[in-house]
């Protein structure tokens, strides 16, 4: 294993990790507000095809990103309508969103399959830093979307923990009735949280098709939306821990196709199972902890809120 191979691996670890991080941050925001959205996979696929189409059409990755965000956000509003406004079952609605999103993306993208790559998100002009050995390519030469993901992570932490909006959002996710009596609008908070989650899933889709897969094909998301959902649990609904988990899970994604070239005789299928195995392990630890203290999961997650009436 020479330096070139290791650097190539590390570049992908960071890139895949931050792509997962974008989607996971969106899911984290929605779940912190008490809405489980299992539609991440579908929103990523739709975001991916929207980015590929608009990126090709307008020749600009920025436009691709914006359109992907709009597409993901619009799709998530279906979930917001069914599960938040109308109070339907969050699991059923989210699963439906994934199935619908995957189908919609396959249909919309059938003319783009195996088309040549479109413009990618470029690196930031960091000059000599990009030339540094190992950390140059692994860190400073990453696309600006990767840096943007890091900024969004810090921003999410700041908003959740240090602002009144975040306090209200977390309250809505812990006890909607309490937040309501404190004068916080439950429905508005949740709809916005789900919408932001959809936009970020769309961004992740754009990252995937423009920079990582470098093209569109049906099934390009390959379960990565589900990994993002697992990642939120793995990261204990905290932006920081989720970032660590994202690099770990991103590492597994990057490792999977390389195993054979490294001469390691482990089935890649086993490796692709690992994120879920790790998540189950973390869930077991949480369950043991929660015998002593309240669960780390937002307490109102999955529960629709209706004001009590007599």
């Amino acid at each position, binding site marked *: 294993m020479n330096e070139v191979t290791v650097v190539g691996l590390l570049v992908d670890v960071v890139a895949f990790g931050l792509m997962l991080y974008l989607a996971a941050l969106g899911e984290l925001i929605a779940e912190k507000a008490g809405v489980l959205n299992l539609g991440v996979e579908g929103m990523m696929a739709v975001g991916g095809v929207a980015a590929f189409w608009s990126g090709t059409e307008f020749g600009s990755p920025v436009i691709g990103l914006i359109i992907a965000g709009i597409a993901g956000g619009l799709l998530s509003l279906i979930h917001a309508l069914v599960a938040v406004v109308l109070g339907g079952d969050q699991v059923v609605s989210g699963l439906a969103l994934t199935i619908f999103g995957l189908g919609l993306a396959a249909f919309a993208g059938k003319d783009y399959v195996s088309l040549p790559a479109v413009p990618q998100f470029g690196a930031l002009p960091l000059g000599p830093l990009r030339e540094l050995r190992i950390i140059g390519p692994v860190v400073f030469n990453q696309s600006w979307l990767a840096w943007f993901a890091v900024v969004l992570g810090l921003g999410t932490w700041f908003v959740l923990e*240090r602002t009144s909006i*975040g306090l209200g959002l*977390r*309250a809505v996710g*812990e006890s909607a009735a309490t937040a309501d009596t404190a*004068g916080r609008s439950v429905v508005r908070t949740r709809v916005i949280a789900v919408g932001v989650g959809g936009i970020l899933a769309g961004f992740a889709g754009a990252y995937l098709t423009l920079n990582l897969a470098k093209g569109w094909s049906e099934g390009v998301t390959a379960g990565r939306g589900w990994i993002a959902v697992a990642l939120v649990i793995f990261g204990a609904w905290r932006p920081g821990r989720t970032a660590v988990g994202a690099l770990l899970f991103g590492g597994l994604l990057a490792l999977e196709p390389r195993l054979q070239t490294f001469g390691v005789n482990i089935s890649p299928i086993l490796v692709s199972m690992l994120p879920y195995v790790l998540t189950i392990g973390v869930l077991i630890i949480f369950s043991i902890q929660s015998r002593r203290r309240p669960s780390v999961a937002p307490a109102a997650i999955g529960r629709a809120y209706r004001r009590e009436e007599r």
Partner: protein
Amino acid sequence: MSITTGAAPGEVGGDGVHLENIWKRFPGVIANAGAELHVRPGSVHAVLGENGAGKTTLMNVLAGVYRPDEGTVRLNGIEQNFNSPADALAAGVAMVHQEFRLIPTFTVAENVALGSSPVLVRKREIEQQVSELADRFGLQTTANREVWNLSMGERQRVEILKALWRDARVLILDEPTAVLTPDEADELGRIVATMAEDGRSIIFISHKLGEVTRFCDTATVLRGGATVASSMAVEHLDAANLAELMVGENTEVSQRRARVHPADLDTPVLTVADMRVLDSHGITSVDGVSLSIGTGEVVGVAGVAGNGQRPLADAIAGLVDSEEGSVVVAATDVSAVGPKDRIAAGLSYVPEDRLGVGLAPKLSVTENSMMRSYASVGRGPLIDRAAADAQCTELVDRYRVKVGGLHHAIAGLSGGNLQRLLVGRELATDPAVIIAAQPTRGLDVQGVRAIQDVLIDQAESGVGILLISEDLDELLALSDRIVVMVEGRIVAEFPGEEATRALVGQAMTGGA
């Protein structure tokens, strides 16, 4: 101070709370029928009344939860029209509900700041401000602790802090001492006095005479949704006149149901000795209760709701564990065994929460009817549907349950039919003793009569009955003996023929 107007310092700048001629109707119930309430600023005002007297409804009107059908709400002379609790809060009225609205994983400061906070939340700063506010009113708390660590008394102080943080001028406390230990209750009394000195109006809902005379200045008594005593000084309250005000001067003697076979007290079918039960917060809910029920005897349990009746029934049935004490059913000691073996020993329980504990709303009539007796309609592991239907038909006919069809979900049945089905099922096992908790609550007159007939029939045939009811007339009509529970203890016992509304009512309010 130049001119003395006779006003307390707190009265400056307003004339407090005035609710006049408040009417509130719900389907089938008139909760408030022209109720009134007048509270001066700077005073602690008790609102007293039996369960169902309309206390909570009236407070919910003041707190903006309900809109009154008629009547006016005035604060400091200005007529108010609240559409939501948020409106009431903005006008300075806050209510601390019996079930706290707190987020366990938030700190004290975060819970308090949730009501109103600057755009940027600086934790240290908010914690500092919350601590200062708490100190000002003598509320002991630790602002940076997460609420799940706190005792019930501390959680209540956080609720009060939330109201003070929003600068509520009128604070409603709904049965605030129900969840507190006696020491915590005394502490609350001091806090309430401090808030009143600050010029705020405190409304203290209670049914405990002792704490009302200790903590409050004036009292309003409600009965049947109307105000029967308005703003009387608590010095004039004593156990006798309070009981009379709360339950009414009902001179009409309840018609006792005639019995052919008198109870046989020498052969008890249920003996409970020194039972002690803790609730989920570790507070004693049943405190050393001993009672015995003879063959064919009906023992009534009277008491204001929440004085340990339900945990007593659950513990006798084996649904919750008791800390101490023994239960003997028809000569079998069942203290150490679970509900199933207690049923086998001859115990039957008609629980208070019919659709929650007794019946499964989405299952059919037949399915619900055989829940106690799968074995009798089983062929090995399979259910003999025809036998189950036959058994159910017999039950439905015997107890006159009106059903659309045996295989329809029971959710559509009326309260009376549900209760007849449940009682019928419970009696099908030929019990030696029945615990009937609020068996006629929510039923219409005919439904009440039908259930009471069934209970008397059972007693006539030698079954012992523990009847827990909030309906005094029902207890007086059916019981051979009435015991009164206050704060988990049996405080009084009356033979059925000597019991009167006044006597039992007085014991219920702790007038000893």
